[in-house]
C-alpha cells in the first residue's frame, strides 16, 4: 500500500506533470503561431480607401462633363479625368479588390455600370464621334450611387472583420493565459518533486554514511575484543605454568618446615627463580615488542635477499650448533630486493627460530631463496609438529598461540611482528602447514629494479 503510494507520488506524478507541461507548451506555441499568421492577413484593410478613391474620380469625371455641357470647349480635362477613372476601375477589377467586392455582393452591379460608362467614354478625344456626355453623366451618377452603397458595405465589412479579429485575438490571449497557468502549475509540481527528490537523496546519503561509520566502529571494537581475548588466553597459558612451579616450590618448603635441608631449599629456590625469569622474559618480550613497533624506522635499500638469508642462517647455527640448517640459493646471484636489511634479517631470524623451536632437534630445517614473477622469496621449512588447519588463519594475529605450541614458551607476538614488518617493506609472508609433517613460511619481497648491490 505504502509502496504504491510512494510510487505514484515519486514517479507517476512528475512524469505526468512533464507530459502535461510538454503538451501545454506545444499547444501554446501553436496558438501563438496562429496569431502571428493572422496578423499578416488584412484583406479588407484598404477597401474603403479604394472605393473612396474611385468615388472621387467618378464625381470628378462627372463634374468635368458637367462643365463641358455648360461650356463646351477643350476635352483635355475630361480626357484626364477619364484616365483617372479608368485607372480606378482597373484597380477595382484586380484580384484582391474584386474578391472583396464579390464578398459584399457588389462586384457584378459595379462592373456592369462601369462597363456602361467605359462604353460611352471610348469615344472621348475622337473628333468625328463625340460621346453622348449627357448619357455618360447619367451613367456616372448611377455608378456614384452604387459606390456610395458599396462604401457603406465596405465599412461594415471592415468593422465586422476588425471585430472578428479582435475576438480571435482576445480568445487566443485568454486561451494562452489559461495555458500559461497550466504551465505554471506543472512547472511548480515538477520543481517541488525535484526538491523533494534532492532532499531524499541527501537524507539517504547521510544514513548510508552513518551506517558505514557504525560498521567501522563495530569492526574496531571486534578487533580490540579479539586482541584482549588472545592476550588473555596467551597470558593464562604462558603465565600459569611458571606461577604453578613457584607455587609448588613454596608449598613444598612450607610443608617440610624447619626439617628442610639446605640443598632442598637451594633446589626449590632455583626452580622458583627459573620460573620467575620465564615470567620476566615473557613480560619483557611483550613490552619490547610494543616499544619496537612504536620506534620503528624503515630505511629501504637494495639488498640481496640470498645474502641476508645466508647471514641469518649462519647466526642461527652459532646459537644452536647441533642443528642441521640447510641453505639453498636458486636465484643464481640475482636476488636483489628493495628492503630494510635490519628488518628483513629480523623476519628471517624469527622464521628460523620458530622452525627450530617447533621441530625435533634431529630434524633438519631448510632455507631456500628463489624467484617468482616480480618477487624474490625466502622459504623456511621445518619437519616439525605443524599447525592445525583450524589455527592456520590466526597464526599472524597478535598474542595468538597455536594449540600445538602450548608446551613452548612464547607470547604470540613474533609472527605478528614479522608480518607487520614484511608489509612495511611492501612484501608479505605466506604460510602452509600440515600437522606432524611440518610448516613452511615464505617471505616475499618485491624485486629491486636496480641490478647492482650496494
Amino acid at each position, binding site marked *: 500500500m505504502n509502496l504504491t503510494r510512494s510510487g505514484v507520488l515519486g514517479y507517476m506524478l512528475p512524469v505526468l506533470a512533464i507530459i502535461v507541461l510538454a503538451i501545454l507548451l506545444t499547444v501554446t506555441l501553436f496558438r501563438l503561431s496562429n496569431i502571428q499568421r493572422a496578423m499578416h492577413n488584412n484583406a479588407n484593410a*484598404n477597401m474603403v480607401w*479604394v472605393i473612396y478613391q474611385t468615388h472621387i474620380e467618378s464625381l470628378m469625371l462627372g463634374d468635368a462633363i458637367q462643365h463641358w455641357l455648360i461650356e463646351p470647349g477643350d476635352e483635355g480635362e475630361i480626357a484626364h479625368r477619364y484616365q483617372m477613372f479608368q485607372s480606378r476601375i482597373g484597380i477595382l477589377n*484586380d*484580384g484582391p479588390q474584386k474578391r472583396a467586392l464579390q464578398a459584399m455582393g457588389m462586384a457584378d452591379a459595379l462592373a456592369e455600370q462601369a462597363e456602361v460608362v467605359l462604353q460611352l467614354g471610348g469615344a472621348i478625344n475622337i473628333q468625328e464621334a463625340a460621346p453622348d456626355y449627357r448619357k455618360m453623366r447619367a451613367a456616372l451618377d448611377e455608378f456614384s450611387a452604387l459606390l456610395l452603397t458599396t462604401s457603406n458595405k465596405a465599412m461594415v465589412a471592415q468593422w465586422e472583420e476588425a471585430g472578428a479579429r479582435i475576438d480571435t485575438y482576445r480568445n487566443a490571449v485568454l486561451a494562452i493565459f489559461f495555458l500559461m497557468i497550466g504551465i505554471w502549475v506543472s512547472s511548480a509540481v515538477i520543481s517541488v518533486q525535484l526538491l523533494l527528490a534532492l532532499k531524499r537523496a541527501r537524507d539517504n546519503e547521510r544514513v548510508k554514511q552513518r551506517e558505514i561509520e557504525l560498521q567501522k566502529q563495530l569492526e574496531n571494537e571486534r578487533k580490540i575484543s579479539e586482541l584482549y581475548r588472545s592476550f588473555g588466553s596467551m597470558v593464562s597459558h604462558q603465565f600459569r605454568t611458571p606461577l604453578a612451579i613457584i607455587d609448588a616450590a613454596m608449598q613444598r618448603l612450607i610443608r617440610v618446615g624447619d626439617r628442610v635441608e639446605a640443598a632442598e631449599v637451594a633446589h626449590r629456590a632455583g626452580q622458583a627463580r627459573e620460573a620467575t625469569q620465564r615470567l620476566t622474559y615473557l613480560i619483557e618480550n611483550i613490552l619490547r615488542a610494543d616499544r619496537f613497533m612504536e620506534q620503528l624506522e624503515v630505511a629501504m635499500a637494495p639488498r640481496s635477499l640470498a645474502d641476508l638469508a645466508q647471514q641469518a642462517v649462519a647466526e642461527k647455527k652459532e646459537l644452536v650448533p647441533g642443528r642441521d640448517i640447510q641453505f639453498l640459493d636458486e636465484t643464481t646471484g640475482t636476488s636483489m630486493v628493495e628492503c630494510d636489511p635490519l628488518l628483513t634479517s629480523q623476519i628471517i631470524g624469527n622464521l628460523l627460530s620458530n622452525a627450530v623451536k617447533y621441530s625435533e632437534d634431529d630434524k633438519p630445517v631448510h632455507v631456500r631463496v628463489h624467484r617468482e614473477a616480480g618477487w624474490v622469496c625466502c622459504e623456511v621449512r621445518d619437519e616439525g609438529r605443524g599447525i592445525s588447519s583450524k589455527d592456520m588463519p590466526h597464526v599472524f594475529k597478535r598474542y595468538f598461540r597455536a594449540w600445538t605450541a602450548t608446551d613452548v614458551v612464547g607470547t604470540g607476538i613474533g609472527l605478528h611482528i614479522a608480518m607487520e614488518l614484511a608489509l612495511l617493506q611492501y612484501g608479505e609472508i605466506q604460510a602452509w602447514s600440515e600437522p606432524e609433517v611440518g610448516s613452511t613460511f615464505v617471505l616475499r619481497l618485491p624485486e629491486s629494479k636496480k641490478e647492482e648491490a650496494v
Partner: protein
Amino acid sequence: MRRTMWQLRRCLQVSGVLLILILSCIMPAAHACGKSGEISQGAAGLSLPTAEVLLIIDGAIDRANVAGEAHLDIGMLQVLPTQGLQTTTAVTDGVRRFDGFLMRDVLSLVCAKGTQVGAQALNNYSVDIPIADFHDYDVLLATHMDGERLLPSGKGPFWIVYPRDQWRQLQDIRYDYRWVWQVNRLTVK
C-alpha cells in the same frame, strides 16, 4: 591597459585614413554632384526635355532645367540602367515582373540632397517616403509591369515598387502605402 588603448586608437586612425582614401577614389566615379561649390556646373549638365514630360522632380535638388525643377522625359531617364524585379503586390494577384529605374539612380540624376521624397500622383495623392528606403532596398520607379508599359489609365506613368517578396519587413501595411502609382512628381525635402 594604456598600451592597449593606444594600439586601439592607432588602429582606428589608420582605418579612418584608409576609408577616406577609398571614398575619395569612389565618389567622383559615382556621380558628378555632391560638393556644394559645383552646383552651377551640375545644373548646366541637365538638358531640356525633347518629348512629353513624364516626371517632374523639385525641391532640394542640384540639377534642374526648368525654373529650379527637373523636367524629365522618358529619353532623359533612359540614360540610367534599367532594373528588373519580381514580386507580389498588395493590390494584384500573383507574382508580377516589374522593370524600371532604381529610385536612388533617379534621385542622383538630379543630385537630390534631402532625407525625404514626397511622391505625388496624377490624382494629387501624395506620400512622404524616407530616402533611406531607396538605399536600404532596390526600390524601383517602375515603367513596365509584365513587359507592358504602365499607362496613366492604369498605374502609369510610374509606379514605385518595393522588393516586397525579397524582404520580409517590407510585407507590412506601413510600406504598402508607399507604393505610389501614377507618379508624376517627386519633391525632395
